[in-house]
């Protein structure tokens, strides 16, 4: 029996590892280990008032903190029957885009790209290819500029509160954003060229079940109340309130972790799943970029999640620019948040965080204090699918040397862009 251990899994958020056990050439077991401490934040918000919940639960994860904040607010507003204004919806969508731009740029340039080019880090890459790294940093900064302008801070946004925003952005801030986004739109062309030029990563093929929010508009990370699960030949639609149907925890024999499956099948969430479930958005400039990236949907290679993120990064910049233009055209009203009238009940929200589906569900008492909170994160949902793809990677690796297997496993893990601080809220190693 031989064992391959990757620990710590570097260039990801949080603390995790991969363990593979082989007997001769036969694969015995594969495990995605979550080594993060348990902060138990879902239990710590019990008894807290509705306005304290988002600031506490955003701390689950920094990279996804805007998604956690906005999903939390939406769950609370759903529980109280609050409908926010169209302007608030638009500003929240813009904040989501900002986070996605920052997160995808961080992942593509600083975490994933060094693998393809055989560098240990973007810092090392910058010595030889400074233009590539500064391009990535410029796009990353653009995402943060949006988050700072709309959310009030790049990490753990403070301006988004129940019912709306503390203060809406000023005209000159929107003009400044527009100018950065125009530079960004041309940067994303260079970004697509760069990602298209990376060597192919073709060592893991697998039938995959994809799950993403079905968006009523052309594309949205924030509006939508149904999840679609799609694989070759079958599809299912699950309403938000029934999220437990696809996040039902199943014990798996090879570890003490519990995994999300849909009717026994692991599923993948994130950029690739979003593009697969909502293919209508793949027109115009995006379709051209997709051709340059040689991405064909539905994909059977999880590494294609990197290409999907590149497409989304371009789309996010274009969509953010459209939103800014609309805000400038229509003018931003100095709206105050909708007054909150707490009532007893449960509210659930499902959105698309940068890494995929995110669920927050709360039950409140009649004074607006939390009785129960449930948070299910994209990396927790992805854990079973990651293990499936680790397994396929090892099975399909003709070279049986540990270094090659380890390198490929790390690349597959990073393609999922795992956020392990988040994942601890469902899956844990014993």
């Amino acid at each position, binding site marked *: 029996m031989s064992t391959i251990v990757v620990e710590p899994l570097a260039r990801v958020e949080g603390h995790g590892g991969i363990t593979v056990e082989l007997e001769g050439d036969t694969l015995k077991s594969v495990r995605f280990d979550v080594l993060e*401490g348990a902060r138990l934040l879902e239990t710590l918000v019990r008894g807290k008032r509705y306005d304290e919940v988002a600031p506490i639960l955003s701390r689950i994860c920094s990279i996804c903190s805007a998604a956690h904040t906005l999903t939390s607010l939406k769950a609370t507003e759903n529980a109280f029957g609050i409908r926010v204004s169209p302007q608030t919806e638009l500003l929240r969508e813009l904040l989501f885009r900002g986070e996605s731009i920052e997160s995808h740029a961080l992942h593509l340039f600083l975490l994933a790209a060094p693998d393809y080019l055989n560098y240990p880090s973007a810092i090392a890459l910058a010595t030889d290819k400074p233009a590539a790294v500064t391009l990535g940093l410029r796009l990353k900064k653009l995402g943060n500029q949006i988050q700072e302008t709309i959310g009030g801070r790049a990490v753990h946004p403070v301006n988004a509160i129940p019912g709306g925003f503390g203060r809406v952005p000023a005209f000159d801030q929107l003009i400044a954003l527009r100018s950065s986004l125009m530079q960004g739109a041309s940067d994303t062309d260079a970004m697509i060229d760069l990602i298209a030029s990376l060597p192919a990563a073709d060592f893991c093929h697998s039938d995959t079940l994809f799950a993403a929010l079905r968006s009523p508009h052309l594309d949205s990370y924030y509006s939508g109340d149904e999840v679609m699960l799609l694989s070759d030949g079958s599809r299912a639609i699950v309403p938000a309130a029934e999220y437990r149907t696809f996040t039902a925890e199943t014990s798996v024999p090879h570890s003490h972790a*519990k995994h999300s499956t849909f009717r026994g099948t692991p599923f993948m969430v994130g950029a690739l799943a979003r593009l697969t479930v909502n293919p209508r958005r793949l027109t115009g400039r995006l379709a051209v970029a997709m051709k340059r990236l040689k991405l064909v949907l539905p994909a059977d290679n999880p590494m294609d999640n990197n290409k999907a993120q590149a497409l989304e990064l371009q789309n996010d910049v274009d969509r953010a620019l459209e939103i800014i233009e609309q805000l400038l055209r229509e003018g931003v009203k100095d709206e105050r948040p909708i007054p909150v009238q707490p009532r007893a009940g449960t509210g659930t929200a499902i959105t698309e965080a940068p890494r995929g589906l995110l669920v927050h569900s709360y039950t409140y008492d009649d004074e607006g204090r939390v009785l129960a909170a449930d948070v299910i994160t994209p990396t927790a949902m992805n854990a079973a699918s990651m293990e499936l793809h680790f397994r396929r990677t090892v099975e399909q690796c003709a070279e049986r040397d540990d270094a090659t297997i380890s390198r490929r496993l790390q690349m597959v893990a990073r393609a999922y862009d795992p956020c392990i601080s988040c994942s601890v809220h469902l899956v844990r190693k014993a």
Partner: protein
Amino acid sequence: MSKPTVGIFGLTGCAGDQLTILNCEDRLLDLVALIDIRDFSMASSLNNEECPLDVALVEGAVLTSHDAEYLKAIRKRSKTLVAIGTCAVWGGVAAMDRGADRGKLLEEVYGEAGRGYDSVPAQALHEVVPVDLNISGCPIEKEQFLAAIAALLNGDPPIYPEYPVCTECRMRENNCLLIERGELCCGPVTVAGCNARCPDLRVPCVGCRGPVNDANAASLAAVFAEKGFDRAQVAARLRTFAPEEVTA
């Protein structure tokens, strides 16, 4: 002179302080030119996990026995240990109810297996090892971080504000959320350095930077009482990011 060796580490937390370092986009390449980063697993897959370090930057709180051992090993190899972020400095959100029955909560979230997990009540770094410098904030403020690094490189002691968020808020000429609008704002008891980020957006301060030293607790208690806030509610809110026993 050779460049100072630096390690950047995360214990249990959200990685928001390491992310804030990476968010110094305009300065990042200048920064890495001045220091020799030897161990930073969030950004690099080639790390020296044993070499001596001039400076260790550590974020997150101690929430497992592994965290505690790891922190002690970092302390042992580092000349200067800097706690970055409110979790490292004060314990942070995970420390808000340290008296709770942990086994019971673990079982509730993770099922019966949860009782066997490596899990301890959240501790700030200074409760486990000596800390040389604290930079609080949830997350840390970019400019404050860069100024602290510049000071360390030059051998100067970093200078931090020792007054509350209120002072910064008044300098920005904001209407007072507590006095004028009766909102539960933690600005008077929270250490400044964020330029009153939240109250400037008409959002009450939640105290994410941790407490200020010289807060006049007695007179504040009177103000909160006058505004009709229940004492327990105020105390719980003030302690969301920094439990009382850590601050005392």
